[in-house]
């Protein structure tokens, strides 16, 4: 077996040239809150419980929640800039959600969410990793997620939309022969006079397909989900979302 020493002309390692943002710490006055932020930025699920409980000894739950959110915002920035990758964001989200749960217990009620989003994986499809990532990112960004799970019949999706009246619905599918359920959902909703952004993505789901039926917006990447949710909650309709995110 013969190995070259010089690979020029065969490939270029563009990935090494990539600019990389810097991990700046978010500084706050309070030591306890600083630790909360740090735990979220580090995705430190082992210690988040302890530092949140410690902070709650002196701080109002909403103050602690704000610190958690501040940490998560920092993580989003680091991910955007390529300092962090998805796993760092997911771990931070785990940490943050655990912290919020503790705060909510202390408050005796759930914090106010930005809006309700329903997510599901198509009927016949048992690959729900994409949906799980979407769930994590939406929750990390303050949305209430109704998770219908995987292999969800069309009827069930339509019923859930009627029941929860979400700002946005998402569907994930790996296979094209299961994604046809999305079009059926769209038709059922439209027939019942319901109009909301229905973001579809995953595996074999293509922009051409999703934009061929009403309500459909193609989601290229899980990381778009919170931004799309923000648009939906702000009152943009599905046509406006499609105009912005597709084409």
């Amino acid at each position, binding site marked *: *077996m013969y*190995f070259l020493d010089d*690979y020029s002309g065969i490939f270029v390692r*563009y*990935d090494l040239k990539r600019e990389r943002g810097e991990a700046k710490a978010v500084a706050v006055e309070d030591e306890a809150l600083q630790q909360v932020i740090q735990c979220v930025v580090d995705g430190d699920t082992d210690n988040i419980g302890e530092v949140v409980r410690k902070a709650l000894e002196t701080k109002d739950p909403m103050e602690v929640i704000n610190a958690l959110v501040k940490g998560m915002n920092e993580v989003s920035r680091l991910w955007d800039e390529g300092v962090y990758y998805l796993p760092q964001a997911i771990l931070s989200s785990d940490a943050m959600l655990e912290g919020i749960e503790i705060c909510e217990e202390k408050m005796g009620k759930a914090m106010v969410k930005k809006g309700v989003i329903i997510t599901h994986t198509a009927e*016949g499809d*048992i690959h729900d990793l994409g949906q799980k990532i979407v769930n994590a990112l939406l929750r990390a960004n303050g949305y209430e997620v109704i998770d219908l799970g995987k292999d969800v019949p069309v009827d069930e999706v339509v019923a859930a939309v009627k029941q929860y009246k979400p700002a946005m619905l998402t569907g994930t599918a790996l296979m094209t*022969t299961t994604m*046809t359920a999305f079009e059926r959902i769209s038709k059922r909703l439209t027939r019942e006079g319901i109009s909301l952004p229905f973001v579809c993505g995953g595996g074999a789901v293509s922009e051409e397909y999703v934009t061929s039926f009403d309500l459909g917006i193609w989601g290229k990447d899980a990381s778009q989900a919170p931004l799309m949710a923000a648009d939906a909650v702000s009152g943009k309709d599905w046509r406006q979302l499609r105009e912005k995110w597709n084409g």
Partner: protein
Amino acid sequence: MAKYTSMAYQSADEMVFGTAKYPVKYGRDFEVGGGLVYPELVPHPRPGSEETKKTLVREYEKMVNDVLERCVQLGFPGIQIELEHVYQMTRNPDWGGEIAAATKRLMDDYYQKYGLKSAIRATIADYRKPDEENMRDSDALKNILATFEASAAAGADNLSIESMGGKEITDYAIVRQDIKGVLFGIGVLGSRDVEFLWKKIVEIANKHGVTPGGDTDCSQANVAMFMAGGYLDKSVPHTFAAICRAIAAARTLVAYEQGAKGPTKDCGYEDPIIKAIAGIPISMEGKTCACAHSDLLGNLVAAVCDLWSNEAVEYHDMFGGTTAAVFTEILGYDVALMNTAVKMGKAKDLRDMMINSDKYRDTHGFILSPDNAYEIGKAIVSNSESYYSRARAAAIKAAELMRGDSKLLLSDFEKEVLESTYKALLSLPDKEEDFIAECIPVYQKQVKGFKPSNYGL
């Protein structure tokens, strides 16, 4: 269970495309690993065609005919077609059976008329839900086995599957860069599920006199690889994904220990390691599966293949004919080039060109370069005390290879991930029982629906 404890090949250099230690013969005058490479074409039905059995069978008849016709038009000596089941084909065993029968009818026809060699791989869909049902006794499992039976009876030559055991854990672990979880999900749970399933598949294959083909860690290692993506992606670190792949080799190997004979499944990127250990013929996919997904080892992955596949292409029209015909043509010429090299006595030259094209392009190509794949194989067979021990050894070896070759350039971030993963691997217990005891409570807490009993634990 009996485990491989030695390598099929004396050295990596002995391995080359087209030839396997243990060739497989089946179908219409079709031999895999006997000196020549054949294309394996995987057509995918259009959305909507799955509506009824009739429409789906018709769709397959058209696709298969396009493939066979293009072979004859261009003089390709033979082809394997994979019937990679969409959910509906396995959910309804008679659908899968009827499509295999229709495919066989067409192949018989082309064989009689022109002498075109051919074979059918039926890849049954594993649609068990690890976190919702009993993996070892569910309706899904019953249908899966019934569809294996129906396919074998109807004319499938090779029975394969992309089994899902452990996916509930790896789905959780991959996106958290949790190497312990990956090792548990793929290395332990995956291996145990492959063992469970393949005992049954081999039994069915033997009963019908067809060939038990292979498995692939598609649902886990490919998830890591696809998410790792290209140079610009920032989902899963590439060094981490490469280590997941090494672990997958130890898992997929179990199918062959249970009696599968190959050719392996195309999307099992771990297969060069399998070939080095087990000597069975392998199907691989690389540049010509860009229709299905992108990868960073488009040429290298062909270096020791015996079948060369497009992975999956949805049936549509292009200027040059249907996608099924178009990708048959590209694969067929790729393969013609390899077979010409064989005939010229230059197969190893072409193999080395393929390797040098991608060995240092990225981590996956690096660890699957036959020299490194061979080393990982050695780590597996030398640590055969348990599924866990060999999977961990494969992971450690992959990490060491990446750490030890200065020609493999890594960004600072990738280096950090590699170092932390390596350290985590070293810190794990040596014994399988200790590892399992450590993992069960952790993942029962963290992964909703995880049931150790699904894996006999």
